[in-house]
């Protein structure tokens, strides 16, 4: 399976994503420059973490207008898988691929830590190799991660099983003290209604080998592969 990793000016987790899918998962990957006009045969698109366009105006607001995003949106509209990580999640929301928005952390502080994240459902193409309720250790590294949406949208996400990950305490319970950014309902990651686009603030690609502190992120990528029987 071929992964296409988009590099925007200011992306900084594109290489982590590349190493995770090539060296850890043994898959093919290609970097796609934000000015490119085609996905070069990529089956899965990764919008990586970073600070595209310096977070000018709002995080992800300008990246959304990069030429490659037209192709990414078309790919998503065809049902193609898109993984938005951190800044990629912000870009996906700005592009309308996912509902809601990511605002300044409630603490006003940049958070960089290994967070506890609970898997809410394994009935998605990104979590089928996890078990529901499983608590993962995934790194977070962001200043604008407070997931925000109106109540109707939040209720719909919950009813449809679109809330994929939540921040929890080590015991796996919702706990304001372990919500690192003040996200509504502790939401750390969601999928779109069709289930082909995922956005999450934690970095699964930076938790791909035990030597870096956690390998809990690998199963997210393995889930994508399992979906198509690779």
């Amino acid at each position, binding site marked *: 399976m071929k992964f296409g990793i988009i590099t925007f000016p200011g992306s900084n987790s594109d290489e982590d994503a590349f190493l995770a899918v090539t060296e850890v998962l043994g898959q093919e990957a290609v970097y796609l420059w934000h000015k490119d006009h085609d996905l070069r045969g990529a089956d899965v698109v990764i919008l990586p973490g970073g600070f595209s366009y310096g977070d000018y105006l709002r995080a992800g607001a300008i990246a959304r207008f990069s030429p490659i995003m037209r192709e990414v949106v078309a790919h998503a509209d065809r049902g193609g898988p898109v993984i938005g990580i951190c800044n990629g999640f912000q870009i996906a929301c700005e592009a309308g691929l996912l509902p809601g928005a990511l605002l*300044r952390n409630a603490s006003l502080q940049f958070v960089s830590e290994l967070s506890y994240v609970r898997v809410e459902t394994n009935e998605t193409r990104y979590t089928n190799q996890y078990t529901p309720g499983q608590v993962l250790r995934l790194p977070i590294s962001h200043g604008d991660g407070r997931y925000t949406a109106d109540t109707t949208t939040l209720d719909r996400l919950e009813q449809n099983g679109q809330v994929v990950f939540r921040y929890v305490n080590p015991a796996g319970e919702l706990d304001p003290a372990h919500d690192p950014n003040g996200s509504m309902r502790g939401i750390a990651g969601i999928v779109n209604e069709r289930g082909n686009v995922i956005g999450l603030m934690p970095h699964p690609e930076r938790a791909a080998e035990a030597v870096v502190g956690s390998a809990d992120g690998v199963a997210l990528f393995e889930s994508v592969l399992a979906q198509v029987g690779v």
Partner: protein
Amino acid sequence: MSRYRVAVHIVPRRGLLDPQGKAVADALHSLGFAGVRDVRVGRHLVIDADAPEPQSAERVVRDMCAKLLANPVTEDFEIANVEPA
């Protein structure tokens, strides 16, 4: 065509947590401005644009706000001023 200078305020929607505004309010309280009840921190943009008349300059900037300058999920905007540039 004339050139107009359009000023627009973009603020976090009322009711949504604005941690920056809250931090500023706390600082103002510390300085003794006891009457401060609420502060919201937003953005102020000044856009010079060519348009046939001021109404259309305002209309175009409203369109810009809806499409890019404000996030419809979390922010409100208002045209603060339109004047010849």
